[in-house]
């Protein structure tokens, strides 16, 4: 029987933010208003549970734009399913963090 992961509201907000297009740590912090000490450990836990996956931006892209490379996050299929159940549990989630227009990463 598959196990269901119940998320706290703050963790559900982080998943919603990633789904809404806020795909790196600082933008998630800015969007959710959560402190860094909450966001980064929560994202590590989500990654361990395979609800999100991360990848480092290519160095060449960062060099071209003269900035350090970023670590991008995206939802996995399990993460998307968990987010759907979290939206049922927290109905205001989508209104709190609406999807933004996605730019190609």
């Amino acid at each position, binding site marked *: 029987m598959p196990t269901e992961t119940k998320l706290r509201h703050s963790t559900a907000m982080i998943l919603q933010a990633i789904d809404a297009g806020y795909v790196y740590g*600082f933008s998630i912090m800015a969007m959710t208003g959560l402190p*860094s*000490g909450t966001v*980064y450990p929560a994202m590590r836990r989500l990654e361990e549970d395979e609800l999100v996956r991360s990848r480092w931006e290519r160095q060449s892209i960062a060099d071209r734009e003269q*900035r350090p490379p970023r670590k991008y996050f995206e939802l996995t299929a399990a993460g998307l399913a968990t987010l759907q159940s979290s939206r049922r549990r927290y109905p205001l989630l989508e209104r709190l963090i609406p999807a933004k227009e996605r730019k190609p990463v």
Partner: protein
Amino acid sequence: MTDLLASILRAVHVGLLRGASFLAPDELRAEWMQDWQSELWYVQRECRSMGSRRLGGEVKVAAFCLGAYQDALYLRRKEWRERPLLNQMRGSASACLFSLAAILAGSYGAGFLLPGVRAERHLSGYRLYSVPLARSAMLDEKMPGYKAGYVDGVATYRISRERIWAAQNARNEWMVAHATPNLFTLLDLPVRFLPPARGLPRDLPNLILSDEVWRRDFGGDREIAGRVVRVGLRTARIAGVAGSWRLPGKVDAWLLESDFDSGADGAGHAIAHLTPSGDFKTGPRWAISLFAILLALLSLPALTSIRKGEYAAGYQAPSRKSRLSRWAFLLAKIAMLIPIVYFTSIDIAYSCVSLFSPVSGYLHFACSFAICLSGIDWIFRDQRQRCPICLRRVTHPAKVGQPSMIFELICASGHTLLYLPDLPSDWFSAQRWLYLDASWRFMLAAPATGMNER
């Protein structure tokens, strides 16, 4: 904001991250640091764009960096959780004894950091009495055992505000303790810059300065010994500088007078140095704890259950070796609790109440009693929740919330099942152990899975 200040703040932010990185496990530290430094760059860029609200931005950056400590701690805890040795230790008897040993070491070590407790240790073997020195007869009355040979030395002092004429006609007012000449030798307090015994003429009384006055009024002059000052109506010669003073009263200087009149008017203090037998007779600190522990043991059955809860559900019983180790574990916990009670109650009593205050004795007693009572209660509750075979805490629920209102907990190693009645009845009032055979252990080999709240 100047560039210099900006560079300093940037260095502080990186320093905060560097400090946090030491909490992260070694093998992850480099990537962790890269991750946070990269994010810091974006946070700083965002804050630089805030213009006039720059200070608020810098606070935001600092708050961001402090969050790194939580992240690094999360990684460190995760590493600990995944260590097999720590997993084995969790809930085991050795982990319990190790925790008690850590508490014991902490309570003993805390005494060295708390000034009141340090003083109490330093002055153990002394008794201090606040007596009206106008009635010198009170000395004998107030000091039990003075005549019985429990005391081998007495010094007295009285504090008064005096005008001081030091060098360059500078005039100050100090709190001066007029004392008998043996005050410092009796207390074994060190005096700095003390000249050799024959170095100074004995024509004048000796004045010993406090460290604060020496620095404030004499600029820390190391050649201070021998200088003559006027203290009120008397002339005295400075003999040295004393270290820390922990007896009652704030004192700027001590005037050691060979003709100190303990019969003069005014209240003062008398200090008696106790002989070893006198220290015992007048009640050492450990006697207070011992009495409190005995009282707690006597009152324990009225306040909590002292059953060890070793009732078997069937005819099975643990081996003799298991029973012996269970007893040894119980006695070891009690043996460690006693010094914990002693040191912790001393830490509490003498860290917040002034030395030799009668309140400290009562507080010491009350703390000893309370800590002992709660400690023994915990020891028995802990003992009842430990598997009689492996002495691990039985924490895995096997059945919860059934109509029978009986809770079942199973040993993580599969040795025993513990039945706990939620509503004790005539036929089932105490917990019972069911000893499981080896066929149960395979069920507990795989880690448990279930609903997770993340």
